[in-house]
């Protein structure tokens, strides 16, 4: 569906995007993850034909971004970064304007506008001016604008930035519900955002792709094994000794002592059931176990790891 080949873009001397290539299949939800200024927005802007790449090209559904920009724009619904809106327009007026330029015929204009308003939950605000809307509703309007022509591809640049946690969940649900068979690209610098919504993640740093895969795959790159947190009440030295002798435990980190409880973080070798071993060890020594849990896949580490590394 989307085929990006070696695109680069510079702003003056700084290379915002440096030779990026990737593909997106129809129906995929792809996440761009990266720190601010990594080149996520620039890449999206090139795909939406707002910027044209200095080098390389991208094909969307067989259309080339250099030659068939209008055809491509028809297929894409785009929510730019910071969700720019004409603040002096009315909600309905704005959606009608977008719909008209999107070549939606007069006969179905009203139904399309109503549908977009309904999907995005703008119903009770549809007669207001955009300037009067709160941030969350502006974001909904931005989405409504991107959806109005029922595009095959949705490109959303940081759709949840600046929203409160409640609104973030709402917008996330909204994106999921409209997803269906649409191809979606979402960018974010917030990890849970991406792992919650995307099938596949591209980690971008300094204009280059530094990692890609499913959220699970990326997590397994980081430590290799799984991480266990545990708290053990018992004599400190003995506990540390016992843990060190435990088979399969590598990289034991002492997180400190609190009210007689020693807390540790351990990385386990693959396929060893370390949790059970810790339990038997503790019970054998007559200590008590206050905490034992396996850490969820931690994209955060991968992210920090990949994005702070010097890009060679």
């Amino acid at each position: 569906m989307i085929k990006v080949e070696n695109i680069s873009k510079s702003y003056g001397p700084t290379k915002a995007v440096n030779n990026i290539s990737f593909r997106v299949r129809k129906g995929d939800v792809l996440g761009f993850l990266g720190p601010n200024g990594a080149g996520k927005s620039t890449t999206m802007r090139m795909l939406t034909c707002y910027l044209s790449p200095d080098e390389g090209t991208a094909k969307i559904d067989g259309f080339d971004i250099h030659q068939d920009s209008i055809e491509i724009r028809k297929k894409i619904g785009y929510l730019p970064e910071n969700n720019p809106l004409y603040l002096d327009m009315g909600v309905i007026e704005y959606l009608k304007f977008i719909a008209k330029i999107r070549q939606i015929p007069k006969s179905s204009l009203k139904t399309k506008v109503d549908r977009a308003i309904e999907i995005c939950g703008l119903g009770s605000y549809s007669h207001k001016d955009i300037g009067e809307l709160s941030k969350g509703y502006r974001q909904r309007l931005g989405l409504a604008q991107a959806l109005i022509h029922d595009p095959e591809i949705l490109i959303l640049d940081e759709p949840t930035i600046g929203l409160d946690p409640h609104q973030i969940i709402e917008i996330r649900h909204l994106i999921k519900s409209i997803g269906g068979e649409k191809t979606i690209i979402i960018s974010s610098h917030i990890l849970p955002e991406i792992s919650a919504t995307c099938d596949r993640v591209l980690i971008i740093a300094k204009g280059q792709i530094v990692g890609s895969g499913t959220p699970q795959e990326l997590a397994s790159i980081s430590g290799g094994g799984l991480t266990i947190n545990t708290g053990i009440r018992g004599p400190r030295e003995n506990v540390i000794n016992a843990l060190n002798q435990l088979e399969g435990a590598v990289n034991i980190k002492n997180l400190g002592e609190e009210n007689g409880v020693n807390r540790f973080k351990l990385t386990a070798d693959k396929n060893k059931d370390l949790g059970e071993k810790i339990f038997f060890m503790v019970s054998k020594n007559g200590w008590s176990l206050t905490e034992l849990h396996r850490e969820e896949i931690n994209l955060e580490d991968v992210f920090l790891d990949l994005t702070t590394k010097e890009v060679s």
Partner: protein
Amino acid sequence: MTNIITIFQKEFKSYFSSPVAYIFIISFLVVTSWLFIRTFFIADQSSMRSFFSILPWIFLFLAPAITMRSWAEEKKLGTIEILMTLPIKDWEIVIGKFLSGFFFLILTVCLTFPLAITIYIIGSPDMGPIWGGYLGAFLLGGAYLAIGLFASSITENQIVSFIVAIIICFAFLIIGEDFVIFSAPAFLVPILSYLGLGAHFQSIGRGVIDSRDILYYLSIIVFFLFLNHIAIEQKK
């Protein structure tokens, strides 16, 4: 074509979304009527010559004020990114924006028709110069607007856009004036007097509609709209 109309409607409506447009129209009417009536009864001539002779100077501020928002605001708000990722060609946006400003200007100028009617009733004016004067005013205004749009497309600051537009318009207005012509080297004189915005306005204002004058204004308009188009493309 439908895209141009859609852009035109949106832009035209946006002029009236704030009270600025009304303040603007009213102050234009008050100032021009005052300047006209002040001398009208003294001169005791039933013509609108004095009215049309001050128009280029009033337009000098009016037209840049109309256009200063049009690109600068889009850039400042970021809505230009929405606009330019819609399936619409850049030149359609340029034309749509130009036409909306042009119609706003025409509307404003047409509201001075009570002056023309007054003169028609109390005197027996030669209608040629009056029709010619209005036509010239529209063309001159169109040229100023095209310049103003271009100025707006190179900045995201409305004030900068306004001032740059005034400077360019002013330059085009005075290069055809006698004052400049006399001090210019001889070989430049025909070029300068041809390029000056004012001289063509005066010749249309005499009621003689010469296709060269119309062609002149159209080429100024096309030229600056073209520059405007380039300025937007450049951003890509």
